[in-house]
């Protein structure tokens, strides 16, 4: 039985009088692609932020491969091996693409400021290796040759991929993707979907994502967790979730479940 990448119990987070998420349990198996879905305002990003250390949950515990991480500062969490992307892309816009990736590698490098001035052998070695890896990652996400472009000059799709490259640069074992296909047309979405699958397969990392595009979710998830109004209403494999009454009603309103039975469709596959 593999240890869960994320094992969290009873996560609760309140803002003032509003309870954003209430008593959520979430288990993310290692090497899986797990999705969190739910209508807007369900608390998905809040949960994400708790797992990635941006918020400290008011109640509950989160374990990352057995290690408790609630309340850790975000750089510590990155060090432990969790990396994330953001719903509205947050790259370092004035820096070039390569530099963004190099910053991503920050935790895996050791040189200190004195070495930066001295340019001693270890520093030079590290910088060279980092640069090489950065270029490799750039190729991996399909942005070859764009390395010297300032991040804000890149087209939208490229920016999303760069953000993923930056996240991968820290060699994470868990990758959190916040709406990776937001704003993409069907072809880009298909490419991103294939890319995510390839990520998991070739790099052996665990992926947790928030998504709104149901085709993507149903296509690649090993496990889906559904939130609504801050509460978990369903969890399981794609097929189970598709036919879950509560889920359908959460998205489409009461009475929709009956309708959906009538118009149940087979999953479509993209090339």
């Amino acid at each position, binding site marked *: 039985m593999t240890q869960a990448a994320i094992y969290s119990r009873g996560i609760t987070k309140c803002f003032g009088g509003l309870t954003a998420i209430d008593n959520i349990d979430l288990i993310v198996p290692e090497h899986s692609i797990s999705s969190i879905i739910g209508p807007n305002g369900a608390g998905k990003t809040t949960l994400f932020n708790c797992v*990635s*250390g*941006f918020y400290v949950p008011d109640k509950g515990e989160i374990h990352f491969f057995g290690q408790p991480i609630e309340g850790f*500062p*975000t*750089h510590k*969490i*990155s*060090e432990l091996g969790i*990396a*994330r992307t*953001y719903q509205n892309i*947050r790259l*370092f*816009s*004035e*820096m*070039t693409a*390569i*530099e963004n990736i*190099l*910053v*991503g590698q*920050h*935790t895996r*490098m050791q*040189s*200190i*400021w004195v*070495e*930066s*001035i001295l*340019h001693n052998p270890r*520093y030079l070695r*590290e*910088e*060279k290796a*980092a*640069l*090489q890896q950065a*270029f490799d990652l750039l190729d991996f996400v399909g942005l*070859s*040759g*764009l*390395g*010297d*472009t*300032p991040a804000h000059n890149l*087209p939208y799709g*490229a920016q999303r991929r760069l953000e993923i490259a*930056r996240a991968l640069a*820290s060699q994470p074992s868990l990758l959190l993707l916040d709406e990776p296909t937001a704003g993409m047309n069907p072809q880009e979405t298909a490419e991103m979907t294939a890319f995510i699958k390839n990520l998991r397969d070739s790099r052996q990392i665990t992926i947790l994502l928030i998504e709104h595009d149901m085709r993507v979710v149903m296509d690649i998830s090993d496990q889906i967790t559904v939130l609504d109004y801050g509460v978990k209403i369903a969890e399981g494999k794609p097929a189970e979730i598709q036919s879950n009454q509560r889920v359908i009603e959460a998205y489409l309103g009461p009475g929709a479940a009956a309708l959906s039975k009538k118009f149940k469709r087979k999953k479509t596959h993209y090339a």
Partner: protein
Amino acid sequence: MMTSLKKGLRSGIVFGIVFIFLMLIGFINVGSNMIGDLLGNMENLGEEARLPVSNLLIFSGLFGLFTGINARKDEGDGKWWSGILGGLAGGLASGWLVWLAVWGSGSLYMQGVDFRTYLPNLGPERMRYLLFYSTPEAAANTYLTYFILFSLAGSVLAWAVSAVHGLKRGLTRAKESVTQWLDTKTVRQIFDNKWVLAVVMITVAALLYFLPLAWGSYWNYIMGTVAIYILLGLGLNIIVGYSGQLVLGYVAFFATGAYTFALLTSPAPHGIELNLVLAVGLSVLVSTLTGLLLGLPILNLRGDYLAIVTLGFGEIIRILIRSDLLTPLTNGPKGVTNVGQPNWFGQVFSDVNYMHLLMLLVLAGLFVAKRLKDSRTGRAWIAIREDQTVAQATGINTYGYKILALLLGAAFAGLGGALFASRNQFTGPEDFTLMVSVNVLCIVIVGGMGSLPGVVVGAFVLKGLPELLRELADYRLLAFGALLVLMMIIRPEGLWPAKRTRFRRLNRDPYENGAAEVEV
């Protein structure tokens, strides 16, 4: 047509008001004298000499010209006479405003009113000059005529320049082709060649060595100040330019460095006459510690709070230095004299030696700053500046790096302070006012935030230029303030903006132009 009329009017009113303002502060006279110097008609003026009014006419004419040019600027619509109309409107507006001002003040003057109780810069002598040594009516009419004429001329000039369509486009194309040529393989190969670099470096070194010998002690002093401010600018650049922390109290570190050095090397008040190198080291150390003291409690404050707290800190240091409380330590308002002078085997440094020393230190500072910028540390700082929350989530210990920036910046200030005290042989609390912090901040931002050539250029412009314009001494700060506002509006990225490093692909041909081969 209405827009150009309105533009003309607006430009006329603005320039008219500016002209009247300059009249009231006596700048017209100074400006005219400068023109006189340029034209050389100011020599051999006898006792009862009347200043050449031609200069004044030229000065006013320039104003008219600007009015007209401004009225016509960027006029897209083809109607050639609309611009002329605008120029006419501008000339009328400014002309009449000035007419009123001159006639009004002139008449009052004729009746014996002395303005100097309320407007000290508008004394009788100046009034007479402004009135062309004649009557208010005649003078006012002269101004009016001149403004209208020159405003029309200005608008015609502007029209002529814009009518030559190709001009602007041609210039841009020329610039582009030059940049492209510089980027080609052959040119890049030349500049990367070891021998070429060596020759360039030797020429620069020779220049740096011989200039101080050539230009005399006055320039050595000014350039020395510029050099010290470059060092300060480098330090603040690390804090503000790299890590993005708005520190308005930088003078605090400067002061502690200067005072440490002064107190350690002067016979009074403590009589410690420490070895100078040691003293410099200790000054840097003390400044760094001051940085630590300031940084630790407040570093998690938001940008503007940080600004005001650091500003307060700078003021606190200055007030404490001159207070009775600390006078036993610092010698209070009297300052510290006879600060230690560096010497080379017994011979005290001359101003030339000082200049060489400062140049060496500036080069060393630039070297360190550049190396820091293009390293993991530098990238971490810039990431923090761009987006602190995300930077931290990407694994950067923001707290630690921000403190590091503060400490290194303070260290630079400490070094600068020690040099400052040593060179002036004296230092006192009034050397460390808020204006110093403001000056250094402006050097960093006007030069270009995060840019090293920017800091150098900024120091030259903001510290060196005022020295060149000695004649305008009284008006220096006025111009400084206006320049700052203008710079921010026209060119906020700075005089020499920071450029991000371009990395060449490692294994491939180092001169292949990567960006061109992409399909997006």
